[in-house]
């Protein structure tokens, strides 16, 4: 009679209740939700997107201008290579931004990148 609650313990609902409790405590990872095609933008705030895009655009341009200016000084072709590399750097910056927001094929591990 007194053993009745003890015998009742491993009921079929135990697994379900354990799963629910683990889910509440965050011990089990929730099933992965596919956050659209471009999984990158999911975790980023608008501020984060803005800063990230700005830095990507400008950094490519900075590198390109530095290389172009250095080559110009080396070869003595003052404005030409700098001008060419400004264009290439702008394109590389846009490429960086495209890499950031491009729809990613969902093979392999999910690469998330929540930058600012």
């Amino acid at each position, binding site marked *: 009679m007194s053993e009745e609650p003890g015998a009742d313990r491993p009921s079929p609902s135990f697994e379900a209740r354990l799963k629910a409790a683990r889910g509440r405590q965050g011990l089990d990872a929730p099933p992965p939700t596919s956050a659209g095609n471009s999984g990158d933008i999911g975790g980023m705030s608008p501020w984060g997107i803005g800063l990230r895009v700005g830095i990507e655009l400008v*950094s*490519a341009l*900075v*590198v390109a201008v530095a290389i172009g200016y250095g080559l110009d000084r080396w070869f003595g072709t003052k404005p030409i290579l700098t001008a060419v590399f400004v264009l290439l750097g702008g394109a590389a910056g846009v490429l960086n931004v495209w890499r950031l927001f491009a729809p990613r094929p969902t093979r392999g*591990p999910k*690469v998330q*990148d929540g*930058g600012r």
Partner: protein
Amino acid sequence: MAAGGSIDALSQFKLHSALGPIGASVNFTQANLMMVVASVLVLGLLWLGMRPRAMVPGRLQSAAEMAYETVMNMCLETIGEEGRKYFPFVFTLFFFILFGNLLGVFPYFFTFTSHIAVTLALTVFVVGLVTFVAIRIHGWHFFSYFVPQGVPAALLPLLVPIEILSYVSRLISLSVRLFANMMAGHVMLDVFGAFVIMLGTAGVIFWLPAGFSLAVNVALIGFELLVATLQAYVFAVLTCIYLHDAVHLH
């Protein structure tokens, strides 16, 4: 701080030698001192935390284990199974930057990550290592990374330089992101701190805006804690992503 009625927000980043005459003779600055402090704190956390080796961890051991697991998961999820090899590197990088950022929030401490010399050196090391890993694994095939697939051959002379520039621009984007975030936060703190002093000493009618500036500063300190952690995390995750590209190459 506010000197003679004008706000001088950038002098806080000036380096001066630490540890008295010995430090001065070898140019040991307060930034170097903070790097040593950060390293000692990380090592101390791990050493003291893991010393009990308890089955049920205490607080410090939990912290050390969580640190280990967080970075290990980051490596495994981002790089893949090969990420185990690069775990020590990412762990060191993440905690060095994290402690450097967090130490800067305390008064009288210095943020060494607010100097582009430091962040650029870290980034050069990261990109150098990534390139080395890629060449080590793939050999000459590494250079196919710069040749996009499915592109007409006539466009390649234009696209290959763009790809190379995009690769090299990691140096700037990674270092500037960390440096700019840390420096901007500390400049804001300094500016609002100067507001408090200047308005507070200007007369009773300015006490209300002075109090408002003080409240903003309190909020900014909390924001700085967030930024410090987030930037260290972003730096580590981007390192992992670059390592993923290096290991898997396309």
